[in-house]
């Protein structure tokens, strides 16, 4: 974080709901770049892209060729775009672990006007139905919150949303805007439409959900990206299924009255978490 800058209470964010060319980083970066320019023109200070937006989601064994270190060559390109456009950018990509060759993570990256800020490694890797993430990825072990000019930003990725403790951890670390990047196919839409609201309400925080659009190997991503306010109201929503781009203002001063009205953080019962841990181990 640049010490000369003060944290903003109000700013505009852009949700860039894109479809990807599977395995084609050059084309996807060009698309990301185009959307960053659009965000800049519309006065946004943060633009968010979906899960695995660097490579596309269905890349299977090609992930071993496509994964990169973070920071690395592709994050450098996005960093340069962030500097040039004075913009915060969040996107998803397969990450190669620094000390290994084939240990990979499904990661979210945050870069800002001063360059690389941080990354989050997805904790819950779906490996059921058509998903096979554990075949390729190692789970992350740390909740991620980054202190920026736009306040503390928390991260989760797609399937993490089903496990409220991940989002809760980011909130407890001070995140007021929690970002969920996603690659969710149409058959899961009804779940996500509820969970995105629930995560915002139970944490009294802004919740920005950005999903892929388009079709990869027959898998149709449902889009529907949205910014949900701290009371659970959908403030802006992108179209279903197709590429779209929407913006909306985040105003942190909206959180206080909501937190007073529905004090879920005040009423947290830490002792229950010990019980939760115990019972989860017995399952």
């Amino acid at each position: 974080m640049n010490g000369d800058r003060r944290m903003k209470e109000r700013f505009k964010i852009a949700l860039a709901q894109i479809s990807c060319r599977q395995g084609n980083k050059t084309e996807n970066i060009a698309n990301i770049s185009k959307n960053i320019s659009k965000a800049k023109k519309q006065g946004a200070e943060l633009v968010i892209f979906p899960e695995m937006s660097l490579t596309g989601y269905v890349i299977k064994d090609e992930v071993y060729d496509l994964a990169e270190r973070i920071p690395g060559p592709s994050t450098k390109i996005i960093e340069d775009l962030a500097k040039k456009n004075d913009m915060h950018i969040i996107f998803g990509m397969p990450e190669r672990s620094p000390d290994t060759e084939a240990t990979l993570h499904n990661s979210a990256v945050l870069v800002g006007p001063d360059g690389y800020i941080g990354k989050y490694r997805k904790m819950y890797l779906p490996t059921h139905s058509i998903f096979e993430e554990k075949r390729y990825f190692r789970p992350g072990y740390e909740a991620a919150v980054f202190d920026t000019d736009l306040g503390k930003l928390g991260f989760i990725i797609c399937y993490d949303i089903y496990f409220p403790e991940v989002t809760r951890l980011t909130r407890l670390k001070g995140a007021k805007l929690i970002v969920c990047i996603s690659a969710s196919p149409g058959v899961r839409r009804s779940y996500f439409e509820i969970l995105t609201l629930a995560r915002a309400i139970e944490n009294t925080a802004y919740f920005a959900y950005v999903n892929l659009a388009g079709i990869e190997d027959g898998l149709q991503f449902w889009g529907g990206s949205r910014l949900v306010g701290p009371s659970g109201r959908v403030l802006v929503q992108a179209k279903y299924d197709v590429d779209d781009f929407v913006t909306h203002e985040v105003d942190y001063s909206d959180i206080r009255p909501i937190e007073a009205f529905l004090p879920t953080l005040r009423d947290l019962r830490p002792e229950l978490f010990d019980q939760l841990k115990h019972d989860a181990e017995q399952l």
Partner: protein
Amino acid sequence: MNLSADVLDLDWAEVDQRLCRFIKDYVNRAGAEGVVLGLSGGVDSSTIAALSARALGGRNVLGLTLFEKETRRSEDVLHAELMVKTFELKSEAVDTTHTLEAFNHSAPVFDSADRLNNGNVKARMRMIYVYYYANRLRLIVCGSSDKSETMMGYFTKWGDVAADISPIMDLYKTQVRSLARYIGVPEEIVEKPSSPALWPNQFAEEELGIRFEQLDLILFGLERFMKPEEIAARLRVKKSLVEAVKRRWLSAEHKRRMLLTAKLEYRTVGADFRLQRSPL
């Protein structure tokens, strides 16, 4: 779990939209001129023809009517023509009778009494024609297999199921009929009993020994990991019927996964070579 008919009811507007997008996206990615399909006049191929026309425009959909003298029924011809007219498709009629006769004469082991094997030759011959047109005219082969028949293995290996894309393969037969109605396939086609037309008067329900309304609910239960006794109790049918359906479903997997080799090396075709699907 509830197993009444309404469990098969979907949001048909959304299904229509998703399938049209699926077809259009694949054709565009492949850089193809459109699709070709075998248009039999039955509900499955008519639904595929209608969806393709809605996705691409009728002028980009070629319906091949592949008849031969033994199974040609004037009702099917009329229905195929009705589809061509209703959805403004391009069409071509091909009589495969002579090709089949030439094949039969050239195969020393040919036996006219071997109805099933000869029927499979017809299905594979249709596939050859469809792919020939596809390759000549830069078209994608759009298959019309549904989920009921695919799960039951009620198709010819390397025959009618062969296609580049199979848009309705995740819909049971009764669901296909609902979708067909929704997208405007004429009612007489929607209601017509299904037939693979491998020999005269062959009807799917007679051969399978069960009505699709019942079969689809049994398959729906099996799909959702229900036990045969639960399904039988819910549907008030004999457990042995459900078990027979389950056996048939499982024993046909060799027809649905067509590449199998012995694992010898590092990565193996059909096993752990996991690559994205490239459109043509």
